[in-house]
């Protein structure tokens, strides 16, 4: 965990650690107390059971403490999440189009690719749209995801701190090749990116397109009206 491909990754991982940490303590506590009682008050030992009907003080304590705990969890997760929804104004804007079963990325200068090329350390703003069914744009290494839905434009942004290639997966079931709808985010040095960006359309990576061949032999997708 916490490779830190973006700042946001650290935020998410620390929220995760906070919630999981508390959870592990609770789980171990509950399990240990349960086992202790089962051993200590085992019938073989011949205790006479005591009928304790309840205790409102205890009842209050174990509502109050978890309430406080979950409110802190809510708070941290909300603070972390706010970063994700704080959209940059001067980022690189890319239109992302999902289809069965592949991605197209379109840049402001009209360039089209099917891997997402971005410069390092620079905010990237994505506008997500689908031409057919629901998909979901998911970059596990960045901890970000947003559904891609026909008829509406969803937004997502990230700023990558590290040059490298990161997987893009589709996280909303979309039929036959849902599991093969992988692509890459290619994070480049700014200079490399600028050079790539300035190149003419002819160099866009046509080669990648065949990694997602759309063949519809097994599941035929019919427009509408088929019972």
């Amino acid at each position: 965990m916490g490779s830190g491909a973006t700042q946001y990754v650290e935020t998410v991982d620390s929220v995760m650690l906070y919630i999981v940490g508390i959870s592990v303590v609770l789980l171990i506590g509950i399990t240990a107390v349960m086992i202790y009682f089962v051993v200590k008050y085992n019938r073989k030992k011949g205790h006479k059971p005591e009928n304790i009907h309840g205790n409102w003080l205890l009842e209050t304590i174990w509502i109050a403490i978890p309430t406080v705990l979950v409110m802190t969890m809510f708070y941290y997760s909300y603070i972390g999440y706010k970063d994700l929804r704080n959209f940059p104004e001067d980022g690189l804007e890319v239109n992302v189009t999902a289809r069965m079963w592949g991605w197209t990325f379109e840049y402001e200068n009209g360039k089209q690719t099917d891997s997402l090329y971005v410069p390092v350390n620079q905010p990237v703003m994505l506008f997500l749209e689908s031409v057919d069914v629901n998909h979901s744009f998911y970059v596990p290494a960045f901890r970000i995801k947003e559904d891609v839905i026909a008829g509406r434009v969803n937004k997502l942004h990230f700023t990558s701190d590290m040059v490298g290639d990161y997987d893009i997966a589709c996280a909303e079931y979309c039929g036959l090749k849902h599991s093969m709808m992988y692509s890459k985010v290619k994070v480049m040095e700014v200079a490399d990116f600028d050079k790539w960006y300035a190149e003419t359309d002819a160099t866009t990576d046509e080669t990648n397109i065949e990694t997602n061949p759309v063949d519809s032999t097994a599941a035929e997708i019919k427009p509408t009206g088929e019972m």
Partner: protein
Amino acid sequence: MANGTIAEHAKSFYEEGTSKKTGLLGWFFSTDHKRIGIMYLAALSTFFIIGVILALFMRLELIAPGETLMDAQTYNTIFTLHGVIMIFLFIVPGIPAIFGNFFLPLMLGAKDVSFPRLNLLSFWIYIVGAILVVISLFVPGGPIDTGWTFYIPYSVRTGTNVSLAIFAAFVLGFSSILTGLNFITTVHRLKAPGMGFFKMPLFVWSTYATAWIQVLATPVIGITILLVIMERAFGIGIFDPSLGGDPILYQHLFWIYSHPAVYIMILPAMGIVSEIIPTFARRTIFGYNAIALSSLAIAFVGYLVWAHHMFTSGMSDTARIVFSFLTFIVALPSGVKVFNWVATMYKGSIDPQPPFLWVMAFIVLFSIGGLTGLVLGSLATDIHLHDTYFVVAHFHYVMFGGTGTIFFAGLYYWFPKMFGKLYHTKLANIGVALFFVAFNLLYFPKFIMGYQGMPRRYYDYLPEFADLQLVSTIGSWLMAIALIIVFGNLIRSLRTGRKATSNPWGGVTLEWHTTSPPPLENFETDIVVTHDPYDFSQLEDMKNE
């Protein structure tokens, strides 16, 4: 609790039916709540086993990257069928249909439910729904491949047989509504003299809370399904954007039912836990009121959290924050229950028989399921984990580790009452232990894979997940062995088990005040309730009954 006496030579409900018909017809036309409960048990167990077999094939396909056993389309229909069967044919009807039917009237001291014929109708409707699911597999178009959530637009566009399959879910909904209605009326009208609401056993409370959800939430899915069918048939454009509809609207309507449905699945199980712990600790339940009222709280707040399934859908930020907040709130009453259960073991006289061991397994597995739910309720982490294996692990821990485990706990607790036979205790203990190990081997790796970014509903996966997928598949084989032991033990006991007494565990709720198995009208004499539900001081008197 009651001053009923048990006549030695009364006929059991197996020997005496409600109609003149005999043999299988005597069952299929029986309005006796106990026979109906047992028919549900047979039907639901059958579908559970079919669902498990489908899952074993899925796990086998996933044992290594690439194609192992089947093509992608087959895999997609199998995970859909697994989900549809497990949800609509097993876990939603689940505990209320089996144990609610059998034990609700018994625990209330009643002769039957309020509307016995309606009850039989519910069962028939269930069977019709199940038959429709089966037919949908064989008609042209092929078996449904949408996932059990039937998300639009995919479910409008796919050529597979969606309409018939979801119509089956529509029909099954009626069974659920009618059963709920019947239970609500029964609880209000048929409590034995002396039994007020706060003298009801907690299983009755939780079944009652569940019944309200069944009645109030199920119509929403019914309407939604009709709209989808109309959309597929006539292209009317409510949900499909290419027809001018809104796919997010579908998701809202779907989860407005399906989240409360999660509580339809788990609440009755919580009720059974609250029965088993006092019996084997031989002391009163700790925090009766807290447990009873937390059921109602869950039933109510459970309506208000549905959109936590949609945090990545593009909903407004305000909606995301509100639903995240409410999700954290709904976790609290479940926590209260767990604390009260453990406290009920304090200063008890604990005899960890198999039903109690199942409950211990439940407390651990359900706690893991519930606590990981907090991770998913939290916005920052859910965005990453939504629709990954983390969710798959989470809901199996809750539904299978929670409700499924208690389905077995209930079966092992009430088996002697239902069938009049005892099972093999050692084998039962081995079954629970193996189940627990297998379960964690099968599902825990999925939490890790989810955090590493393995999306759900994937036919194939990246090589980096191969090791954990393999562990999970090995877990599925162990699980198969555990389930064979668990079911095998009971089936064997039906024929060769020793005869059970009327009260093998020393329980005190009303069902233990009659013979095993009970007579047609449940009790030989009229019941008058004089004790609290978990008052074990009556145990001495009961021995003389």
